[in-house]
């Protein structure tokens, strides 16, 4: 399919590819703070955004960057920030604010070894649980996790679309290895990229209730400055947007927010499978670890081991039903990850004892190699 431009193969760095995709998805505002290994995203966007009439600002800290992104999104601009481990910790309060006030935005976290300053800036996958539970209180979360530079392209576009569709922040978890890796990517033309925009109100301003959700649980969102004068607050609020402490309304709001994401789980769950049809032992892995696993599973098959790979690209909400299905068909699931065991907890929960679940942790700042995974596959 030819588009209006020549779609072209390019050699791109993961972080650069994320920027390219974000602009094609409609990004108009970026606020960030320097931190390795995500800084290239800010650097590229500082140059690129003004050319498309967008705005870039380097804020005084990570907290301010997250705040500015929410502010700009309230005016209708598609907005993003990018950070890494320690910065992701700092953003958590305002990330919760965005989830609670239902302001769409994309937050990129190029993970690095933690805790604290850790091992700057070696790779790790230690923020899987922080992505889910980093901010206080119950809240909906969508987190996506690509495993190659070309997946970064697709997943970044999806992150923007889901944020707009569900009026919620979307976390894009990346691995340092992929963020800094250069690979071939086919960059499509603008008109070949499916772009979703938030639903805006069609009622007259006087009749607008900013948190009166449609049947899909997502309320239409008016841009600030367009005549719909509404109030956004981090306090519990009713459909009018104004604070309430009435128990039934408090309960209604938090349940709607959770259901809004859970009810669309199928639509926002992206996964990849390899040799899973007849697998007796499955590897469940994300990001760079899924790439090593792909190679390991291939080698295992050559050795006659019925191995398969299941790679969730959507890690939150966690694809529990799919894991449960796999657990019913295999003898064993191996979960290699670059942390002390986070993803494995979810896999164990979803497998619910239907098969053996074994974790494998590497936490020395080095990626897990295919040979390490192959060795686990060869264990009976």
């Amino acid at each position, binding site marked *: 399919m030819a588009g209006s431009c020549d779609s072209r193969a390019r050699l791109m760095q993961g972080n650069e590819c994320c920027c390219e995709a974000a602009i094609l998805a409609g990004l108009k505002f970026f606020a960030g703070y320097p931190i390795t290994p995500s800084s290239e995203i800010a650097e590229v966007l500082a140059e690129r955004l003004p050319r498309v009439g967008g705005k870039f600002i380097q804020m005084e800290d990570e907290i301010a960057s997250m705040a500015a*992104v929410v*502010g700009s999104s309230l005016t209708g601009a598609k907005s993003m920030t990018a950070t890494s481990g320690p910065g992701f910790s700092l953003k958590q309060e305002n990330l919760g604010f965005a989830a609670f006030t239902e302001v769409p935005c994309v937050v990129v976290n190029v993970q690095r070894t933690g805790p604290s300053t850790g091992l700057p800036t070696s790779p790790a996958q230690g923020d899987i649980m922080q992505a889910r539970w980093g901010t206080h209180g119950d809240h909906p979360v969508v987190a996506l996790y690509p495993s190659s530079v070309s997946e970064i392209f697709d997943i970044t576009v999806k992150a923007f679309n889901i944020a707009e569709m569900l009026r919620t922040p979307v976390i894009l978890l990346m691995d340092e290895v992929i963020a800094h890796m250069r690979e071939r990517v086919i960059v499509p033309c603008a008109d070949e990229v499916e772009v979703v925009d938030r639903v805006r109100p069609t009622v007259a301003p006087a009749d607008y209730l900013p948190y009166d959700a449609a049947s899909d649980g997502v309320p239409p969102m008016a841009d600030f400055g367009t005549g719909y004068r509404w109030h*956004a607050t981090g306090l519990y609020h009713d459909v009018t947007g104004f604070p309430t402490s009435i128990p039934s309304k408090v309960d209604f709001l938090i349940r709607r927010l959770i259901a809004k994401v859970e009810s669309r789980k199928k639509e926002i769950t992206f996964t990849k499978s390899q040799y899973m049809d007849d697998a007796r032992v499955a590897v469940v892995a994300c990001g760079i670890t899924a790439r090593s696993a792909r190679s390991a599973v291939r080698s295992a098959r050559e050795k006659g081991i019925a191995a398969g790979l299941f790679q969730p690209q959507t890690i939150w909400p966690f694809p529990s039903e799919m894991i449960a299905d796999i657990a019913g068909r295999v003898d064993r699931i191996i979960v290699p990850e670059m942390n002390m065991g986070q993803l494995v907890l979810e896999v164990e929960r979803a497998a619910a004892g239907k098969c053996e679940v074994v974790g494998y942790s590497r936490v020395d700042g080095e990626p897990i190699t295919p040979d390490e995974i192959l060795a686990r596959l060869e264990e009976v």
Partner: protein
Amino acid sequence: MANKFEEYLRPQFMPHIWCPGCGHGITLNALLRTIAKLELDKDKVCVVSGIGCASRAPGYLDFNTLHTTHGRAIPFATGIKLAKPELEVIVVTGDGDGAAIGGNHLIHAARRNIGLTVVMFNNSIYGMTSGQYSPMTPSGKSATTAPYGNIERDFDVCKLVQASGANYVARATVAQPRQLSTYIERAINTKGFAFVEAQGMCPTYYGRRNKLGGPVEMLDVLKKNTVTVQAAAKLSPEELKGKIITGELYQANDPEYCDLYDNLIKQAQEVAGK
């Protein structure tokens, strides 16, 4: 017509949460009278706040309103202003919200000289959490977390904002509402970062604990302790001890951030077009 400012209120949410005798109502009144006088389009005004007593103001105002997280009103407002510079963005903050937890944002927004108007409702205390000392609680005064008297020095936030690069800095007290209103008007009309400190009063926590009497007595104290910036120039540091210096403290006409960014866009697009 005298009460035109009432159009800018959301009366359905009254009564407000502020205690009887709180100075915040006077500052809010001054802000609304100014907006009414300037005949600002409600749809184009955006009021942003953080957390605290003062920060509850936006809920009562019929504009585009945003009640954010503690200390972060200014960066939220920065995102709004930069994304949509045609909006009149006003930040309402308190002395704890704006000078303690949000102090760094205040400095950097002033340094950028972004076109925000920040009104700091200074009640010299953390009122909402019931009376802990703030960076603007005068030395020696009592607070729940300073039971032996505050040994920290309160700082002059206007000097801080001026030194950081703002285009307009003024201070008035709630004992001079018309003056306060005039300064807010000039702040809104300023291109670039504008800051007005409204020295208020908290009879409930600050006044009662420090035995300053009721609201009327506290207003009297404010009046007695006030010195205009012109008069202050002739007084010695000793004579100025404990005084509140009011007036227009600084004015400049440096370029505004969003204007600079618009120029940057033009340049970037020219470069890209070549």
